[in-house]
């Protein structure tokens, strides 16, 4: 159970959107990986960041903090972070801290991508 996180980042051309696919554990050991790609996406000027959590098994407060900061930075630039496909253990933590009311969360990533296209004016 050694902590590891995989982050795959993909830009959607013409949509000012980056999609991040997280897999593994988002905790104090791994959170800098997400912090880095979130910063990169925001520096590139992407307004919408879709984060696919379908393969994320674990999140601790360190991960929650970076997501919250990412959301705050996105909104300062008129953008948004959309989360999709939370697995039950991760959703449980989001519910405990009240983040299901803080983030825009979609059941499926298809729904999140449709919302991203609408929000970025590309679809």
């Amino acid at each position: 159970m050694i902590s590891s996180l995989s982050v795959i980042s993909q830009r959607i051309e013409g949509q000012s959107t980056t999609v991040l696919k997280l897999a593994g554990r988002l905790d104090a050991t791994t959170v800098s990986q997400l912090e880095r790609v979130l910063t990169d996406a925001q520096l590139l000027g992407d307004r919408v960041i879709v984060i696919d959590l379908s393969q994320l098994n674990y999140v601790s407060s360190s991960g929650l903090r970076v997501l919250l900061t990412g959301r705050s930075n996105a909104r300062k630039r008129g953008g948004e972070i959309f989360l999709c496909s939370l697995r039950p253990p991760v959703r449980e933590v989001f519910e405990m801290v009240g983040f299901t009311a803080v983030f825009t969360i979609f059941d499926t990533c298809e729904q999140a991508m449709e919302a991203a296209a609408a929000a970025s004016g590309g679809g």
Partner: protein
Amino acid sequence: MMSSKLFTPSDKSLKIPARLDQLWRASAFVGDMAAVAGFQGVQLNQIELAVDEACCNIVQHAYAHRPNGEIDIRVQAERGRRIVITLVDTGEPFDPQAVPVHDPATSPDDLKSGGLGLFLIRRIMDDVQFEFNLPGLGLNQPKRFNRLTMIKYL
């Protein structure tokens, strides 16, 4: 009538270096003991999360300026009843009252990220007790130590 075996406590301890890359060992160790006590599923995951948060606080705050610290983890699993987790460190005392209190009802744009770990620990565990600057008990013991006791009932 329940058998007396049901309440036989199982007591184990583990000492880990206070480093973020070692925290998985604490969570796995406590998780195994929680399973012995009878916890499963979501509750098991949550107990592991509480231990991860507590150890992370120790690494990042108590031992912020001491790279060679250790965390002593003692777990008492009382089958069918409860788990008692005790974390001991010899780092800087930490005042939980000084940590901002996370309030899930706060408006999203006013939400601060501080206090999330402590909030999760208190939300998950039934009883949480911080003790600081306790005097050491023996010649080879540190002069002062901090102790966090967390209890979860089935």
